[in-house]
């Protein structure tokens, strides 16, 4: 009886096949000239092969003469498990690398490293953060990576005067809380949006930009600053949902609008299938996304369609700093990911403080406050709110199935 069912199914499938054969025989118009999409905007911006690292960038190794107590500890607090684990892994691998390099060079100062898991969940974050602040040996923290959990726990660091540098949380309001212990190791959304807008209308030469944002704090905030920057070039907006897989409604709006560029303000989980479906429907313009899209997963999931994609990111292309890339790869058996270098640099700032003799919480805090040096990825100097003074936004594109940097944008 099952056999019968399978047979009928096969019959149906065969019908399907024949139908498809019919379709394929019909000479399909070249998709580039078929539907929607403005003229070809294939702007050819050459990829960078290496970037200039500051000559006197501070490295974790220091001068090798540092001494410190055996209890001196740095901590990473953030997601280690859960749906957002990958981002956390990228970061603490970077931190781990910095600490390993430091300890190897400084026999007299073996800094310990502790990790606390928040799953990226604000409701769970108070437990690990409180635990970390209770441990007297911990004098500096890298984290927390997400804006929500940072908001939920910033006051605990403040109460305990424990310095922490976030390598990934980009919500602009985070620095409005009057916290003196919070430092952001990268540019916030308010920096990236205008730069992205400038990049799209300038270097990419787009005239009609369609903006699609997801429902995250990140997507909404970035969407707003970008659309402000785009001005009259913006011809339409649409909103999608986290977890959405089918974007046909949004795509038909875009195709009808004859946009020549689409800016997607969100993460790759939705951005990748969106780009893929967009191109499958014959879109020939460019696709631009922020750092939330800039991940190898984007290319994996969008497939060939990703070749039209550009990214903006207030992050340095760490993979282009050969020393960092090779060391990271040797230690973790994978390429550095998004925010790996931010984690590395943040740890370096703290380690340099320890090496300079700032070995309690108060001293390390004031060390970070007055820090003014080059890191591997950028110059680190914070204003009194904890924002970097001159964060740089970089552009990236997809070339031969890889994300490659194209230099600083928006300047």
């Amino acid at each position, binding site marked *: *009886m*099952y056999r*019968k*069912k*399978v047979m*009928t*199914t*096969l*019959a*149906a*499938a065969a*019908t*399907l*096949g*024949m*139908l*498809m*054969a019919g*379709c*394929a025989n019909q000479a*399909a*118009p070249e*998709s580039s000239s*078929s539907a929607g999409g403005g003229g070809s905007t294939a702007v050819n911006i050459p990829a960078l092969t290496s970037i200039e690292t500051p000559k006197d960038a501070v490295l974790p190794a220091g001068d090798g003469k540092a001494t410190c107590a055996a209890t001196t500890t740095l901590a990473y607090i953030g997601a280690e498990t*859960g*749906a957002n684990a*990958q981002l956390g892994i990228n970061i603490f691998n970077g931190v781990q690398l910095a600490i390993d390099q430091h300890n190897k060079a400084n026999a007299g100062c073996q800094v310990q490293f502790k990790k606390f898991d928040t799953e990226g969940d604000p409701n769970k974050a108070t437990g690990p953060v409180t635990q970390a602040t209770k441990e007297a040996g911990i004098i500096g923290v890298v984290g927390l990576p997400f804006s929500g959990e940072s908001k939920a726990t910033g006051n605990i660091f403040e109460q305990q005067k424990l310095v922490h540098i976030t390598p990934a949380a980009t919500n602009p309001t985070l620095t409005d809380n009057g916290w003196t212990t919070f430092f952001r190791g990268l540019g916030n959304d308010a920096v990236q949006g205008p730069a992205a807008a400038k990049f799209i209308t300038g270097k990419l030469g787009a005239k009609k930009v369609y903006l699609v944002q997801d*429902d995250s704090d990140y997507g909404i905030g970035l969407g707003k600053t970008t659309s402000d920057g785009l001005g009259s070039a913006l011809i339409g*907006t*649409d*909103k999608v*949902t986290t*977890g*959405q*897989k*089918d974007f*046909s*409604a*949004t795509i*038909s*709006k875009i*195709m*009808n609008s004859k946009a020549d560029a689409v800016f997607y303000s969100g993460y790759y*989980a939705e951005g*990748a*299938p969106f780009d*893929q*479906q967009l191109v*499958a*429907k*014959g879109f020939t313009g460019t696709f631009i996304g922020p750092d939330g899209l800039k991940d190898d*997963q984007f*290319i*994996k*999931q*969008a*497939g*060939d369609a*990703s070749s039209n994609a550009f990214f903006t990111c207030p992050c340095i292309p760490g993979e282009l700093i050969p020393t960092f890339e090779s060391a990271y790869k040797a230690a973790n058996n994978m390429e550095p990911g998004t925010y790996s270098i931010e984690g590395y640099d943040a740890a370096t700032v703290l380690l340099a403080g320890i090496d300079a003799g700032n070995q309690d919480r108060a001293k390390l805090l004031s060390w970070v406050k007055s820090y003014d040096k080059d890191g591997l990825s950028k110059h680190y100097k914070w204003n009194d709110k904890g924002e970097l003074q001159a964060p740089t936004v970089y552009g990236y594109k997809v070339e031969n*199935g890889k994300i490659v940097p194209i230099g600083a944008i928006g300047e």
Partner: protein
Amino acid sequence: MIPTLLTMLPADDSTWITFDIPSLMQNFWSATFDGLTFGSIYALVALGYTLVYGVLNLINFAHSEVFIMGCYGVFFTLSYLGFGPSAPNLSVGAIIANLLLALVVAICASALTAFLLERLAYRPLRKRNAPRLVFLITAIGASFTIQYTIFAVRGPNPEPALTMFKSNPIFEVFGTFIYDQQLIIVIAAVIMMVITERFISKSRTGRGIRAVAQDPDTATLMGVNKEKIIITTFVIGGILAGAAALFYVMKIPSGVQYNGGFILGIKAFAAAVLGGIGNVRGALLGGLLLGLIGNYGQILLGNSQWTDVVAFLVLVLVLLVRPEGILGTSLGRSKA
């Protein structure tokens, strides 16, 4: 009721709901075709819910995982065959052969999952005559177990996209292109539905299914092997879910993910209830309707989040007015 309450909330500078009617007019036909395409996938999955509900009176929560296992079947077949992110330049015959192979594997994966689910989770409960709540909680547990087993093995990220063939527009209706992919999905889904309906109404096994749906005890007395009918029903649901999986992966190559079936499953169940659970035609109607509502809603409101809200409100309203769904229940019972 809820919207009026919400207007009492403090006003903010931005409006939270807008109706973009010109956009709906402009995109009406493309939204319709896309909605029908996705609706057909809903409908195929909805059939699985409907059939099982018909014979067991059970919401098989884990049917979404039966579906996602089919998606993994497609993915592994295609990656074994060497498909990558770009569509290979294959002859039509080769494409069909590959698709058929993927279909068979998907169907096997889904049907096997459904079979195991029935044997390992539901059958022990049936043996000791467990109350319905117990069945339902088991189904939810099974759904979670399968999802997070996949999560443990394959990680949180979707599998890389594999493209089977490049979708091309074939003709134009109302100024909108129709793509071969859309046509294949809709036509194949409808054919499968028709076959299923025929099978249920005409074949001997189909009569058995209907008999068990109507009155399991009497059916047993009349010589129907209830256990066999139940397992058959699960397997048929699995087969249809496997087919749906192929179409889904064709349409959304990056949809193969541990929890990729969950929301789709809930929507498909909603589709089944909307059309009238236990009713084969109802599943088709409900699926297509839900696909259309989703697409129109997204375009009209400019925010896809509303589509879930609207879909559920429609479902609740329909249930309140017609607890039996639009077409009523016909596979089994007339009893409420």
